[in-house]
């Protein structure tokens, strides 16, 4: 019941936003939105402290028939695989509300659309039924399309259309796979009941796994399927970036961990080397392309795409270390990329440019923003002591055990990642302030609202870096279930 409540509370928030009188001043709207985003977040925090050892508690799960003749049910519940992202979704939506300072027009509608997207995202991480999963998956689609298309910068329209067509194609193909899976095994769409692939033959599993993997990898995006992404990231407003980079890719990776691998173990197996290779390619491609980006936001975007590769590598490993790493990397990746995107927004607003060559000396005028940019970049590099280190290391260890070549390539990727990030820091945070940029010489540090958006993310990166057990402890039992499904087949 609590889970259902958490999922649908943002819908009430969205309705509230639309019902606020047209004349409501901006400040009031922001306060209401903050409140509406805080409630689900507090509920998730409560769930963590009250139920972290027993996520399968009755108060958290709900299951009733929805379309009995097809074996489709409204089944929601939390488990270790989804809880981290469930938490992160509520957190990042709250932060997206805080970080919405560059949204000026149609603020109420913006928040309403953001909250509808939140319903979909929360729902995906709690759904225990294939059709329900798909429904939530698609609920995010139109809101994201509108957020990019209405509130983005001048290149937003083609970017939004491209985003929509690609991801809709991917998810529709995925749906075909889901339906084949559910019908051939019953009909039954309960994820729990389908665990382990049931009595499907290996050939049938492969035939079903192929479209599902395709759809999910488009959503991630894995590198050859990524061409829709860059324009979308670069032309979105900061607040949209938080959700777009922090959560949306994880709908794809979570689908791999939650559905593709445990439900179709034999069908996915032949594709695993490929998934691992795609992971390594993501990492290397991301860092090489990031290296040559003149635009700070594009650099962060490629960095974000690149480190998604660790999740793919960890998933493909099929062992406890790798899967734990992948599940955790979903969360840590969201934390650090949201942090970096917000910082880019803060810096660009002051400098009037995002070109790296025109920036410099941020540490002198903006010690906090500059310092946190360093922290975010260090996190992205996987420096020990920060959360990303733990998850990346585990993913590589797991991946190396299963696929040595891909594992080594991924490890090389950490080095190349460090190169472009340090190079970026040297040119932006350190060094002299460029003379032709008077804005930079007068720039003030991040204000209290801006700090409120970034400090929690930075803190969580540090805390989870020192105490990774806070998260791994929660996800461990669920990872073992996945391992049992793979091994038991």
């Amino acid at each position, binding site marked *: 019941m609590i889970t259902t409540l958490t999922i649908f509370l943002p819908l009430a928030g969205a309705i509230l936003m639309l019902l606020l009188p047209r004349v409501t001043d901006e400040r009031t709207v922001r306060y209401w939105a903050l409140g509406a985003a805080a409630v689900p977040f507090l509920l998730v925090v409560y769930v963590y402290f009250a139920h972290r050892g027993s996520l399968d508690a009755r108060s958290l799960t709900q299951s009733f*028939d*929805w*379309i*009995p*003749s*097809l074996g489709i049910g409204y089944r929601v519940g939390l488990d270790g695989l989804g809880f981290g992202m469930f938490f992160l979704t509520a957190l990042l939506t709250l932060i997206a509300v805080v970080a919405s300072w560059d949204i000026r027009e*149609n603020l109420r*509608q913006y928040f309403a659309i953001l909250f509808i997207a939140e319903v979909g995202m929360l729902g995906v991480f709690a759904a225990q039924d294939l*059709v329900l999963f*798909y*429904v939530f998956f*698609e*609920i995010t*689609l*139109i809101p994201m*399309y*509108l957020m990019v*298309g*209405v509130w983005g910068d001048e290149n*937003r*329209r083609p970017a*939004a*259309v491209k985003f*929509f*067509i690609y991801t*809709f*194609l991917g998810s*529709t*193909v995925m*749906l*075909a796979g889901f*339906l*084949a899976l559910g*019908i*051939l095994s019953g*009909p039954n769409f309960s994820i729990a009941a389908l665990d382990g692939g049931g009595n499907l033959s290996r050939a049938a599993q492969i035939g079903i796994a192929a479209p599902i993997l395709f759809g999910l990898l488009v959503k991630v995006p894995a590198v050859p399927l990524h061409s829709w992404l860059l324009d979308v990231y670069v032309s979105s407003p900061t607040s949209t970036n938080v959700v777009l980079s922090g959560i949306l890719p994880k709908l794809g990776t979570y689908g791999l961990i939650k559905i593709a691998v445990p439900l179709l173990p034999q069908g996915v197996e032949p594709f695993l080397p490929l998934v691992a290779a795609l992971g390594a390619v993501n990492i290397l491609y991301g860092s090489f392309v990031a290296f040559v980006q003149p635009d700070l936001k594009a650099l962060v975007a490629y960095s974000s795409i690149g480190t998604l590769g660790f999740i793919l590598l960890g998933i493909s490993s099929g062992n406890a270390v790798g899967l734990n790493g992948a599940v955790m990397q979903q969360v840590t990746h969201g934390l650090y990329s949201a942090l970096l995107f917000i910082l880019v927004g803060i810096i660009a607003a002051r400098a009037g440019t995002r070109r790296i060559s025109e920036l410099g000396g941020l540490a002198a005028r903006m010690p906090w923003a500059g310092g946190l940019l360093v922290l975010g970049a260090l996190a992205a590099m996987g420096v020990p002591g920060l959360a990303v280190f733990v998850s990346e290391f585990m993913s590589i260890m797991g991946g190396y055990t299963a696929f040595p070549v891909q594992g080594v390539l991924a490890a090389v990727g950490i080095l190349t990642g460090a190169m472009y990030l340090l190079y970026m820091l040297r040119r932006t945070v350190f060094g002299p302030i460029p003379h032709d940029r008077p804005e930079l010489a007068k720039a003030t540090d991040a204000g209290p609202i801006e700090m409120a958006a970034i400090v929690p993310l930075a803190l969580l990166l540090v805390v989870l870096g020192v105490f990774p057990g806070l998260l791994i402890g929660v996800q461990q039992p669920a990872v073992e279930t996945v391992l049992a499904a793979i091994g038991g087949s």
Partner: protein
Amino acid sequence: MVTAQTFVGLLPEILAFLFSMSVLMIGVFSPRSTGLVAGLAAFGALATFVTTVVLLLTRFEGEFFGGAYVVDDFALYFKLIVAVSAFFAVLAAARWSGRTGDAPEYLTLILSVAVGAMLLVSMRDLFGVFVAIELATIPSYALVAFDRSRRESSEGGMKYLLTGVLASSVLLYGIVLIYGAAGSADLAEIAGSFTGRLTPVALLGLVLLISGFAFKLSAVPFHFWTPDAYQGAPTSAAAFLSVAPKAATFAILLRILLEGMPAAAPTWTAVMAFLAILTMFVGNLFALRQRNVRRMLAYSSVAHSGYILAAFAALQGAGVERAVQAVLIYMAAYLVMNLGAFFVIDLVGEEAKTYNGLFKTRPGVALCMVVFMAALVGIPPFSGFFGKLWVIIAGVEAGSAVTYVVVGTVVLNSVLSVPYYFGIIRNMFFEEPATDAAEPKGVGAVKFSVYTLAIATTVFILFVGPLAALARISGLG
């Protein structure tokens, strides 16, 4: 023998007919009382709806006129669809027809089409089928040509009439050949005589019959009248004609094929698969090129006929029961989303550029249109998704190579349809508003319909369980 039961079974049609006649009579004696006739017509549609619901709830069943007319759950389900769409069409038409001063005639025509469509779904005799189809079609010619202030209306009406008459004669020819081959026009007796391979005469009859129906359903290659007729017709008429008579025609085709020619299923499912694939592709590809929203929705309705025909292709093997349900559920989903999309034209306009910036000037209408467009694409949680869900599932369950191809085509076409539906959303949200974006006056009833239908399209997801149960008991055979 005509008994009291007969009257009860025919009560929805009798009511609709009585109300349509009263509307006409009031128009003769008091031509100025637009509000009264509109209210009366809406009430008539509502009464028909309620009667049908009561018949359905009491599980009323019966065969009348020597078995030529049957009232069962299947028929009642489609009568409901016809009654609901008639109700909304009357609401949406009230203002427009009141302004032209022809409200009584216009509303009478809508109710007459409804009577014909409701009779049609109960027919179990091929000649009865033909009579009922004509009963529904003849008033619809007049509806299309009703708007005398626009040339397109007369043009569309003329094209519709000429092709429609041709289609009727093809259909009648098919019926006669089947009658000749089977020695009876009764579906059960036809089924009894067509047990083995079809004779050439029967096959020709079947092909002509399906061709005649394909005309009425605007299936490719018999769809050419559709864009002109829908563009010319008054909006409420186009909306109504794209749902009610179409639903009834699909229903009776289902009944004829399943009850009359089960043995020939391999033949006609193949024909249906061919028609479905062609119809989906042509409808969507032509819709992509339209800049006029009315024409776009006309081609979209062609494409949606294709999706429903895809369910017909799955009427084989293990897929029969599910495929019948798919048609039932698809029609309910299509009813709410398609009526709504057409009515928005009445509120905004038919040129794509009139939608520019609608989100800034009239956010409520813009949001409704997003709902309809997303539903027509088949994006959850909106109604259209569930229609396609059932069609795909039926195809997978039927499990032949052909149905897998058809299912693949459905998936592909859903993606193909995104650009034109979302072109409208793009205009509404991403473009700057045109200067004269003021809301037309006196559109209360239309606006009420649009909002109601948008809500229905959205909350469809909550009622899909009961609807599926209803579709299950309403299946044929």
